[in-house]
């Protein structure tokens, strides 16, 4: 874990109110694993904002941020050359299996970015991405560049499957099954994925969100209910997660 201010080397608008940032942080990148996140400090805000690692290179990290409130709006004002104060990498990330295993990745909206490093890990990942509309779709080309097959769904039908991403996902699972499944996205999507994983007996992992303070396990703020042998207990997204086995997640 590191805490440092790093130079931003670029910001690109990749969808309305959605920005891709490249950060020059080789030391932090060297520690990062897929599914981990960085905790971003922003001027004028007390709490850091957790943002998933979307790409890990020798030179640094890429993150993708959607403006959803005052903090992410402030982040969107940062530009090339500005310093960005990161704490990270945090969390446990995804448990990965051998690259040749048949992995299915399911992303909804701004839940998509953390899945990209998985597509780079698995040789031929099957990726299912759901967005509100075609113009909101992000990272599809990046997944394809990583060798994945992308199936798109949009709620308004403006691109790909018209409806929820879980519909083509179910068709795929019914037809081909999968060795392992990873999902990140809004709660209703996670709920549906959890049910499908159970139905088709696929080992599945869900990446969860929670309001955070410390990001390192010290404050116990980011509690989520998790089913364990002793019943439902609170685990912490920042330290025990953000990824949990689907069958343990209480949604």
């Amino acid at each position, binding site marked *: *874990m590191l805490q440092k201010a790093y130079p931003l080397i670029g910001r690109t608008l990749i969808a309305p109110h959605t920005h891709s940032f490249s950060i020059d942080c080789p030391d932090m990148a060297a520690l990062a694993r897929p599914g981990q996140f960085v905790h971003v400090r922003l001027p004028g805000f007390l709490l850091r904002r957790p943002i998933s690692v979307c790409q890990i290179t020798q030179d640094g990290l890429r993150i993708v941020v959607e403006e959803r409130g005052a903090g992410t709006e402030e982040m969107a004002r940062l530009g090339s050359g500005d310093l960005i104060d990161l704490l990270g990498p945090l969390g446990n990330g995804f448990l990965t299996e051998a690259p040749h295993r048949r992995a299915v990745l399911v992303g909804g909206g701004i839940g998509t970015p953390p899945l990209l490093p998985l597509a780079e890990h698995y040789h031929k990942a099957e990726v299912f991405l759901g967005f509100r509309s075609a113009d909101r779709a992000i990272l599809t080309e990046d997944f394809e560049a990583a060798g994945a097959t992308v199936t798109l769904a949009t709620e308004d039908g403006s691109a790909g499957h018209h409806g929820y991403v879980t519909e083509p996902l179910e068709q795929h699972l019914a037809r081909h099954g999968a060795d392992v499944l990873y999902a990140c996205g809004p709660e209703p999507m996670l709920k549906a994925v959890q049910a499908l994983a159970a139905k088709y007996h696929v080992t599945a992992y869900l990446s969860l969100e929670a309001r955070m303070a410390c990001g390192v*396990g*010290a404050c*116990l*703020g980011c*509690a989520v*209910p998790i089913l364990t042998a002793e019943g439902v207990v609170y685990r912490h997204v920042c330290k025990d997660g953000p990824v949990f086995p689907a069958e343990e997640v209480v949604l």
Partner: protein
Amino acid sequence: MKVDMRVNIAGVTFKNPVITASGCYGFGGDYTDFYPLSRLGGVCLKGTTLEPRQGNPPPRIAETPMGMLNSVGLQNPGGHAFVTEELPRLTGCGTVLIANAAGSSIESYVGLVELLEGTAIDMIELNISCPNVKEGGMAFGATCEGAARVVRAVRGRTTKPLMVKLSPNVTDIVSIAKACEAEGADAISLINTLLGMRIDIKTRRPVLNQVMGGLSGPAVFPVALRMVWQVAGAVSVPVVGLGGIEKWQDAVEMMMAGAAAVQVGTASFYDVYAPVRIIEGMEAYLEREGFGAASQLTGIARK
């Protein structure tokens, strides 16, 4: 001449006056990637109760202007696990260890401090001020009688130095501090969090599942400083000041108001190095200003 950074509180020597605040530092292991525990004057460990508590349902965190709310609700593994699992990890860590003891009844406070007898704990911080639990907690800290009852009961059952942590959500903090002193408290720490709330205008519901939570961070600093000033002027035991300290200047202000030492909580959430930066900044300041010892700061604004 090197500045003597040591302070003595209730017979315990702290290598410097900066202690991490309870609930903001877990059981001491979460920040060791950044600096060793031995850098700190002391560590107040996460609030512990006799029985394990799973804490409150999420969301537990909300942001406020220069502050935050939490409603963690004393999630902890209970006194037994604290003594057998958490404490052993801390042996030899080179800093003063303070247990933050909470309870929902007099008996549970007593049971817990008895468990702590004979452990490596150097001091007990009696938490009669947690706003996030339904029973006990702040209820004891809200009246002189309540506070006195807990302190009296616990005082008889522990040989460890006893620091009582007060709630700021009261009309008259001075009387409560005096009541604790009268019952044998060796030190007073303040403040715990102010009770606050936020509403999410999108969902039109309170942000916190528990509706209300405890406010901490720089926003509360002027309230904390005022209460430390008032209490330090009224009791003769040492006062440990906390609430919103994020810079060495804040720590110096707090000590000038009468605090013998300070605690740093929320600041670590946004700057993991905050406690260390405060120690270093204070030391440089003391040297620059020609102080021989950190303890000389205590109360100089009162003179």
